[in-house]
């Protein structure tokens, strides 16, 4: 998968641009959407506690894979949503899910040797969508593009807000 910084910058760019048209979508809500983009990266927990260790402890099969799927995004978006005040639940759930989906789509465009991405729509389908194989996860070009896009959007955003 792309690095976490790139994952966070993609919804930042998209939601900041959207905020120019949507009145309620200010910076605090953009940040909430960015948080959703970090959900698929939670799979890195396997570096700290390996799946085989969990399987041994629990005595049942176990895989962290769903953290990087649509099903995992929806469930974790629900958990995050409940941490906010009740009146914000609809907005938080929508933004966190959106952020998570941008990360899944970005990861779905990276290189796979057999030409098919992971089954990121699980558990709704086991289908592995074809990937355009645009980048590998350690390619700095992806982050450079994301940083440049975020910088440009930040400057434009400040100019637009100053004008208003």
């Amino acid at each position, binding site marked *: 998968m792309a690095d976490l910084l790139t994952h966070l910058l993609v919804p930042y760019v998209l939601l900041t641009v959207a905020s120019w048209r949507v009145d309620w979508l200010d910076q605090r809500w953009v940040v909430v959407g960015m948080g959703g983009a970090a959900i698929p990266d939670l799979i890195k927990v396997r570096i700290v506690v390996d799946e085989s260790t969990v399987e041994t402890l629990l005595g049942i*099969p*176990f895989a962290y894979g769903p953290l990087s799927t649509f099903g995992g995004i929806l469930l974790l978006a629900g958990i995050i949503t409940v941490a*906010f*005040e009740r009146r914000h639940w609809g907005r938080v759930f929508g933004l966190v899910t959106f952020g998570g989906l941008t990360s899944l789509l970005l990861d779905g465009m990276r290189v796979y040797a057999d030409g098919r991405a992971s*089954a990121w729509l699980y558990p709704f389908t086991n289908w592995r969508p074809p990937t355009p194989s645009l980048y590998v996860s350690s390619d700095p070009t992806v982050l450079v593009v994301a940083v440049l896009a975020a910088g440009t959007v930040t400057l434009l955003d400040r100019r637009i807000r100053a004008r208003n």
Partner: protein
Amino acid sequence: MRVWVRVVIVLGLCLTLGGLFVHAAVTEEQRSPYPDAADLSSGYDSYVGQEVMVFGTVTETTGSGMTISAESGGTAITLRVTETEAAVEPGGVVQVYGTLEPNQTIAGERVEVVNSSRRAEFYKYGASAIGALGFLLLFFRYWRINRDTWTLEARDG
């Protein structure tokens, strides 16, 4: 909303997520048609002639191929990849797609370099650490924890 109601909702969602972790492990073969390192270690000969895709750490490179170590579920297997060239150093990570041959060998059809070296991997984790720290600073600039209701609330109301 009362705290205990939110705790019940969170517990329900966590249990469902836990169920998904188990379901994903049980049904893994439906999403990955290829044997993993543990499968290859335990029954290599039964997969000879099949298409495989493995992720592995490069341990040695030669003129026309490389040796990789693939690991899954705490089990590792060493595989020789032939008929391929890739710009990668020992310590780098590759995806290999090809046909499994006898004697722990893959006739590589396509090799993709995930991390060309350990440095590339450190770059990725470094960028991720900066992202995590930056996000936390940004988030708590706009949101705070209300210790009376145990909810996140906007700093400017």
